Structures are given as C-alpha cells and as structure tokens.
C-alpha cells in the first residue's frame, strides 16, 4: 500500500476557529466589560476555558498531518503518535450530531495501539474513509471486540468486519 498524506481541509479548520473565537468572545467579553457576580463569572470562565481548549485543539489539527501506510498511521505534528495496525488495541467509531433528528453530524474515530498515544480523527479529515477502513481491517486481524455503536457506524459507512456479529 502506498503512503497517503492526509490533513484537515482549510474550510473545516476555519469553521472551527470561528466557533472557538465566537465562543471565547461570548464568554470573555462580559467578563472583561461588565461587573460580573462571582459565580456567574465562574460559569463564564468555564465556558471560556472550553472554547480556548477547542481553539488549541483546532491549532493542533492544523499543524498535524496524518500519514497512512499499510503498517502504520503516523500523526505527524505536535502531540503526535504512531499507530501500528498490527498492535491495535482500541478502536471506537462514534457519531455526533447537535440536531434533534441527529442529522448533519460527524463521525469520530478513536484508535490506539499498544504503548502509543490515542489518536482521535474527525470525519472532516480528507481520506477519513481510508483510515476507518484500514482500522477496521486491523481490528479484524487483531480480533478486537468492537462496541455495538462502532459496528453500527461501520455498517453505515459500508464497512463490515468479520467476526463482529451481534453477540450476547
């Protein structure tokens, strides 16, 4: 398998930056401009921290490139990691949506190999399908037990994993 170099598209990163800055302003401006009661200030400060962390996470994503090969997935950047497919010991594919009918959401893949740092990838990443497909093959080879949610989400992407039928 040839190596694939993948990264988050610019429009997705910008959308996240806008969210992060918007949230920081909504929570931070009242703290800066208004006299604020102590515990309301605490709530606003907590919100500010969440959006600041979100901004840092977006920055980390911008600086990270993912190199997918037959044997490994390298997250090349700050807080990087190297996933060896042969030693995969955790895989979770989750779906999140902020809408009540749960449409228009996004997937998140969480993978880890023995001794390495966990890697979390969102579906906005170019080549997300390739990574999920490779991870599913690795999970099958390593006989990893996948959660019900992961199996359903894999099926929705058209990826099936042998030996992962409904078990009780």
């Amino acid at each position, binding site marked *: 398998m040839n190596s694939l170099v993948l990264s988050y598209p610019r429009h997705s990163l910008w959308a996240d930056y806008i969210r992060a800055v918007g949230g920081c302003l909504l929570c931070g401006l009242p703290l800066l401009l208004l006299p604020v009661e102590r515990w309301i200030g605490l709530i606003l400060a907590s919100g500010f921290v969440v959006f600041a962390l979100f901004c840092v996470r977006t920055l980390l994503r911008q600086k990270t490139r993912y190199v997918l090969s037959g044997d490994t997935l390298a997250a090349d950047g700050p807080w990087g990691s190297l996933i060896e497919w042969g030693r995969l010991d955790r895989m979770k594919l989750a779906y999140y949506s902020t809408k009540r009918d749960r*449409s228009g959401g996004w997937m998140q893949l969480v993978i880890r190999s023995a001794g390495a740092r966990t890697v979390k990838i969102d579906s906005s990443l170019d080549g997300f399908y390739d990574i999920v497909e490779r991870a599913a093959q690795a999970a099958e080879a390593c006989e990893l037990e996948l959660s019900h949610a992961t199996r359903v989400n894999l099926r929705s992407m058209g990826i099936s994993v042998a030996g992962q039928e409904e078990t009780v």
Partner: protein
Amino acid sequence: MLNYVARRLLLMIPTLFVISLIVYMIINMPPGDCVTSQIDELLSRGDANALARADELRALYGLDHSVWYRFFHWIGGVFRWDFGLSCQDTVPVKDLIGERLMLTIVMESCTIIFIWTVSFVIGVYAATHQYKFGDYAASFVGFLGLAIPNFLLALVLLYVGKVYFGVSIGGLMDPEFIEKPMSWDKFVSVAKHLVIPTIVIGTSGTAGMIRRLRANLLDELQKQYVVTGRAKGLSPFKLLVKYPLRHAINPFVADIGHLLPEVVSGSVIVSVVLSLPTMGPMLLNALKTQDVNLAATFLLFVAVLTVIGMLISDLLLAALDPRIRFGAAGEK
C-alpha cells in the same frame, strides 16, 4: 467530545439570549404597565396627586425609557445578579426570589429523582412481567397518573390529610420556620413537607415514563439477539442488563431535557393549591400585575433549566449511544 461540547455550548448562549429577549418583549406587549393598576387604586381613593405619583413610579421602575433600553439594562444586570426592582413591593427582585428559587430547585430535583426512580423500577417490572397481574396493575396506576390532573390530586390529598389524619399538608415547612435562616430543624421540616408535593407533581411524569420504558424494553426483549442469548442459557438478569436495558434507557435519558421545564411549569398550579413558597405562585402574580422584571427573571430561570436539561441529556446520549440513526447523514 470536546468538539461536541463546544458546538452545543455555542448554540446554548444565543438561544438563552433570544429566549430572554422574546419573553421580555411578550410580557411588555399588553397595554398598560405595572404602575397603571397602582394609580387606578389611588385615583379610586380620590388621591389628587395620583398622576404625579405615576410619573415618579414610572421613573423609579425605569418605565419612562424605551422597552429596548429596559431590556438591555435588565440583561446587563443579570450578570451582576441584579434583576431590577419588582413593582409589587418596590424591592429588588433578587431579594424576592432568593429562598423561593432555592426551594423550587430542591423541590424540582426531588420530583425528578422520584420520577426516575419509580418509573425505572415499575417500567422494568412491567416489561419483564408482560400480561401478568403486576403489569396490569402498573399500567392501571400509570393511566390513573396520566388522567388525573395534578391540582386535583393535590386537593384530594389536602382533604384526606386534614379530615382523616388531622395533618396540614400545605406549605413547604412548619409555620415557625418561615422567614427564618436555614437550620437543621428547618431542613427536617422542609424534607417532611416535600413528600406530598413531590408525589403530586411527579405522578403524571412517572406515568408517562413508565409507559415509554415498558414499550422500549418490550421492543428490545423481542429481538433475535435476546432469543439467541436465552437459547444459549444466559441468566435472565444478565440477558436483561447487558443490552436490552441499555438500549431501552436511551429515550429515558433523552427525556431529561423535556422533564425539567415540564416539572417547573406543571408545578405552578399545584404550588398555588398547596400554598408552596416556590417560584410558581409568584410568577403567576407577576404576570397578572405586569411586573416585567420579576416575570422575566423567573422565565429566564426556566429557560436556563430547560437548556441545561437539554445539554445534560444530549451529552449523556452522546456518551451512552454514539450511533448513527437511520436517515442521519454525516457531513463527510
């Protein structure tokens, strides 16, 4: 998950702002204001200075400014825990709502815990004992709970308590503790008085929850994987807890968001009937007298509770069951 939390929080903040704006404007829409009724009373008593007094009062309550100015003044004050003056007694709204807000939160929390606990136990029992006596009994009680209005149940319990047991059920504490600071004796008194309101307000919510949990669990229990598990000789308890219960509980969790506002709004009439010193009766009076600051503050708290309830239920659902649903399409 951070992505999810950030997006949900980002939706929450403008939602709360828009709700408070709409609520404030709607309360201001009827003709007249809270001073009108006070002036009518003074005029009927033949007070010659009534009209001059009206201008003074309007200036005091800020009613001589535009509604937009008053809204932004009020919402700016919210950050300082200053909700303006109440027209009823010319006292700050924060002084009026202090203990009532706390008692309301305690009562609503107890009600929600009651609803969850009772409906979980009865719902699971009814589903696992389908068409047995216990199931019919639970369904009967459930339908009764749905059919009887809360205020009627409150009236019946008031009557039964007074006539047959000689106890007064009204209020949230014994009279000697009213307006007194919190103490152990007062806490015990509040705890004793909480039982009846909790049952009265929680009954209808419990009935609905029992029906939903029973239906969801029955759906799951009839699926093939349960039949396979049973054929393999799994114990009934393990067979119930491992998957069916976990899946059946999702709509249960999703209901938290609806439960909070339902319980708050459903408790208003019950609070009036049972003379409970909670926010409900004061809200009713504030709306009748067009006490905008007081009513808008109450409704802001209801909105905050609703939005927080929705956030908690969405976060729990996202953590418990991050599955894609039929028809839901990912962005990519």
